[in-house]
């Protein structure tokens, strides 16, 4: 079969420019610009049958297709005035597997992840985990039975070899000298990176988020903020309570802990999983034929909002991705970069890459350090 090559929508990227004071390594301004597409979901989904949309949402999104599909299903079912719980129950395992696999893949392929050696055996373990997660995420139909059980067992075995686990209190436990231990050591206090305190985007914010998304779908999806608040979302924000960890090691620990927790959750009794489902996905009807969903996707809280026509077809559709919060021009990454120094000679550039990698955007990015006088 020949595949159509055409003027496709491209993934876009984020550009991070650190403008330093002339003759200094102190930042004067952080500029975050993006070419990633937002707002296309309304044009693409409006007029379609709701039955088509979850599958299309999954197809479009490379990294978190399952999260998008589930968010779409929940929002549509809510808009129809039906109970969303059966959807969450049916799709939960796929969400857990997607978070596990995506965190692991992103960590191994990030700039600082690549600087921690991965030998042939470790790479085989990483591949085995990713393949098992792919099995569990599945297509539209969840995987059950022997294949799923084998995949879950394979994940546990491979993660143990990579030195990734959690203790009985749910704290990250890394095997001494293992891959995970090496990653954390590389991001230890020697890096000197500083991270800004941030408040967390939580379920308590959903009603404000949904209202703002309904008022200005394109604008809010591209530049979300809540009455001047720029909360953070993702694993560091989900870790515990209170403020987000303010050092690189703490931030990476939160992501690694989520990998190990997800593996435990996949193997946990159904009753334990049922108790936690509400923290992973939710949704409700907000008006006539209008429904929303929030899914804690790997990179953070993902929102979908749909309104249906009287005919039952999609009238409007909006998606707000977690990267938009973390990479907002006045958001958590920008504030963190302002706390750091960016020495010349490559060291500053490495710092930008290390820090931005820990905020883990869902698109590619590039960075530069420029003299503010020349900008």
């Amino acid at each position, binding site marked *: *079969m020949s*595949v*159509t*090559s*055409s*003027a*496709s*929508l*491209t*993934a*876009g990227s984020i550009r991070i420019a650190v403008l330093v004071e002339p003759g200094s390594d102190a930042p004067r301004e952080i500029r975050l610009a993006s070419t*990633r*597409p*937002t707002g*296309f979901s309304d*044009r*693409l989904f409006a007029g379609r049958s709701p039955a088509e949309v979850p599958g*299309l949402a999954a*197809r*479009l*999104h*490379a*990294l*978190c*297709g399952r999260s998008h599909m589930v968010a779409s299903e929940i929002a549509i079912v809510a808009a129809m005035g039906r109970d969303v719980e059966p959807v969450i129950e049916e799709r939960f395992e796929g969400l857990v597997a997607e978070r596990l696999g995506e965190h692991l*893949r992103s960590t*191994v*392929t990030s700039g600082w992840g690549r600087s921690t050696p991965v030998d042939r055996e470790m*790479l085989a373990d*990483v*591949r085995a985990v*990713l*393949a098992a997660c*792919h099995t569990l995420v599945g297509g539209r139909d969840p995987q059950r039975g022997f294949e799923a059980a084998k995949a879950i067992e394979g994940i546990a075995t491979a993660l143990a070899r990579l030195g990734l686990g959690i203790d009985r209190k749910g704290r990250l436990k890394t095997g001494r000298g293992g891959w995970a231990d090496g990653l954390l050591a590389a991001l230890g206090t020697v890096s000197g990176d500083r991270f800004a305190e941030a408040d967390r985007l939580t379920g308590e914010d959903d009603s404000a988020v949904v209202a703002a998304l309904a008022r200005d779908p394109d604008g809010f999806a591209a530049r979300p903020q809540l009455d001047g608040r720029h909360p953070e979302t993702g694993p560091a924000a989900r870790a515990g309570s209170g403020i987000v960890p303010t050092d690189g090691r703490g931030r990476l620990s939160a992501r690694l802990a989520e990998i190990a927790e997800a593996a435990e959750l996949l193997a946990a009794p159904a009753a334990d999983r049922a108790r936690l489902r509400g923290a992973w996905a939710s949704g409700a009807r907000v008006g006539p034929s209008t429904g929303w969903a929030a899914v804690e996707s790997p990179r953070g809280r993902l929102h979908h909002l749909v309104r249906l026509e009287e005919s039952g077809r999609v009238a409007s559709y909006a*998606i707000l*991705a977690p*990267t938009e919060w973390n990479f907002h021009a006045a958001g958590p990454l920008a504030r963190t970069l302002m706390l750091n120094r960016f020495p010349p000679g490559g060291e500053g550039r490495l710092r930008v890459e290390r820090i931005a990698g820990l905020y883990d955007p*869902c*698109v*590619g990015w590039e960075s530069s350090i420029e003299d503010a006088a020349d900008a």
Partner: protein
Amino acid sequence: MCLAIPALVSELLPDGMARVSLDGVAKEISIAMVEDIAVGDYVIVHVGYALAKIDADEAEKTLALLAEAAALAKGAAE
């Protein structure tokens, strides 16, 4: 938005790399994260890495959807 971009593998290279055709443009990517990639396979690409192998029918449908989205975006901008 983390869009899924399908690419056709045209050549396998040393060190877990491959040359792919990405919307008609040749590019080198890493295939280290996916097992058993062969010339003629379609893969989903993200930031220089193959994420998963997909069949040609899936690639066709995804590219058609991306083209439709691009056309709608262009129409909205005009």
